[in-house]
């Protein structure tokens, strides 16, 4: 089948509707890898993963295996994990520290910025062989930039700067970091890697979906509601059970208390929906009390109050990142195939906060992002059912129109739903999608 033209691709998006091919057609997926993941700013990791020169961690841009590494000059580089000689993956460890990267096959050796610095058996190459050619290297992503420790890379040499791309979403990163008494956070506590048989776009589409919990998470909501709270807990199970119950907040709560905000570039955040004093800072819990005291000591009462009044659930940074600033969790979406997606999730430690805060962060990670979570497993099942459903030749159009008539400007350059169940954040992602996929 010939590759769809830009006009054909543009025709797949209509007001409040998306053609099912967008989730099912391998040709569309290949174009996404090239036009979106080959150009946009893609989240690749956090600075705390590569503190010292030579520190590296494997990462990806789209399907490409990459390495994020702290170069000897202190800058962060993102380089392709491929030897320029015979194509072998050079960096085999998930993370570590290295002065040079040496290929296992014939010993070609690279500096931490990807430059080729040593070629054994240097005799006999043709005259045009040039080890200083930037294309004969572990080729570096042309642009790498970060915002408050969150590192992004772009495979395009030209394009809008990261700050422009993030726009108002910088406030969500600010919220995540501001919550640390020392203004510093770090990745800690292990990485969940879960997968499903469905399209990569489904993941961010679900993370700001205020209408799904009562249906998708019915089983864990009901099981948690029936739980006897006098039964023994170490504290971890209590957090999990309380979080499951929160997913059952009534419809009027979602309508009146939550909210959904979207911004240019496909980004969005859903307002927080927690009213449980064990889960939300600034109320009740003794660990929080100790944390608030630490925050006030460093930042003062006024600033602490301002920070605690920021109430956000998931912040989506299109196309591949979603994080919970208030709950110190982050998820990175890795497309594998049109019907296969991997998601890697990370927890963050707030520097200067009591150790117990981080234990609660881990318990929260287990219930919200855990591969064996009684909550997340129902989300994964749903993505898989969509993956199968969209291959049917039934309804041609996927409906994303809820709230279409009532979305309104938010006064900060974005568009908000009249209530949190608006699908405005999906429509907003498709505006960004069209900008990359069907630009003339």
């Amino acid at each position, binding site marked *: 089948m010939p590759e769809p033209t830009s006009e054909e691709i543009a025709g797949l998006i209509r007001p409040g509707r998306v053609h099912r091919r967008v989730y099912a057609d391998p040709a569309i997926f290949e174009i996404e890898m090239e036009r979106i993941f080959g150009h946009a700013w893609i989240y690749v990791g956090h600075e705390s993963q590569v503190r010292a020169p030579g520190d590296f961690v494997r990462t990806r841009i789209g399907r490409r295996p990459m390495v994020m590494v702290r170069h000897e000059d202190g800058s962060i580089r993102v380089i392709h994990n491929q030897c320029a000689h015979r194509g072998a993956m050079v960096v085999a460890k998930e993370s570590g520290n290295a002065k040079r990267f040496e290929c296992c096959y014939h010993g070609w050796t690279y500096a931490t910025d990807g430059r080729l610095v040593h070629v054994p058996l240097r005799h006999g190459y043709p005259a045009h062989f040039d080890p200083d050619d930037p294309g004969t290297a572990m080729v570096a992503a042309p642009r790498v930039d970060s915002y408050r420790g969150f590192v992004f890379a772009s495979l395009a040499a030209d394009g809008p700067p990261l700050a422009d791309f993030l726009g108002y979403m910088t406030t969500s990163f600010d919220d995540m970091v501001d919550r640390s008494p020392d203004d510093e956070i770090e990745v800690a506590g292990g990485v969940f890697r879960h997968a499903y048989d469905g399209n990569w776009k489904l993941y961010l589409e679900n993370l700001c979906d205020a209408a799904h919990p009562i249906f998708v998470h019915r089983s864990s909501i009901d099981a948690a509601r029936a739980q006897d709270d006098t*039964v023994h807990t170490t504290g971890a199970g209590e957090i999990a059970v309380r979080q499951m119950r929160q997913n059952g907040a009534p419809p009027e709560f979602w309508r009146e208390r939550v909210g959904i905000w979207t911004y240019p570039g496909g980004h969005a955040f859903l307002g927080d929906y927690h009213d449980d004093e064990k889960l939300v800072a600034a109320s009740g819990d003794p660990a929080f009390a100790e944390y608030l005291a630490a925050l006030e000591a460093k930042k003062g009462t006024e600033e602490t109050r301002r920070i605690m009044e920021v109430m956000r659930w998931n912040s989506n940074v299109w196309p591949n990142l979603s994080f919970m600033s208030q709950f110190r969790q982050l998820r990175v979406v890795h497309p594998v195939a049109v019907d296969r997606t991997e998601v890697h999730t990370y927890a963050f430690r707030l520097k200067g906060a009591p150790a117990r805060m981080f234990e609660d962060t881990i318990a929260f990670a287990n219930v919200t*992002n*855990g591969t064996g979570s009684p909550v997340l497993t129902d989300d*994964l099942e749903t993505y898989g059912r969509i993956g199968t459903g969209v291959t049917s030749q039934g309804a041609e159009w996927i409906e994303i129109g809820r709230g279409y008539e009532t979305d309104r400007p938010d006064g900060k350059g974005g568009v908000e739903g009249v209530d949190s169940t608006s699908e405005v954040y999906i429509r907003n992602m498709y505006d960004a999608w069209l900008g990359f996929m069907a630009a003339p």
Partner: protein
Amino acid sequence: MSRLAPPEIESFLIHEARLLDERRWEDWLALFADDGWYWVPLEEGQASPRDTVSLMYDDRRLLETRIRRLAEAALHAQTPVSRTSRIVANPTVEEEDGSGLTIRAKFEMVEYRRDSRRIFAGTTWHRLARDGEGGFRIEWKRVDLVDCDAVHDGLSVPF
């Protein structure tokens, strides 16, 4: 070298595996002590469930909720339900004192669901307390999967 576990321990492990294969979740839960816990670490040799995430880490309260959910009607992740077949083997006594024993064993589990099969294998650790009537209760159970840190699709069934 560890001592081979006595027959009543092996019988206990086989009984537990059977309860799980037959999806007799409440009966399985009843094997645990009132303050018992169940742990499937994410990392090889993981020292603690408190500072590193886990595939499953259930104190008694969460274990009850997990088990109750498996009987809910609207359980999407188990529609259709998984069928499993477990083999437990090589049980040895790693520790023994007046209050009970710590048992190490190997297991393999085949899970079949919606036209696909998955194989899980690893090492289980049971801390068993004598219940005073010739039986045991599980004070804690740890399951170290050989592929604990691999990419996994959703894990709904306890090991």
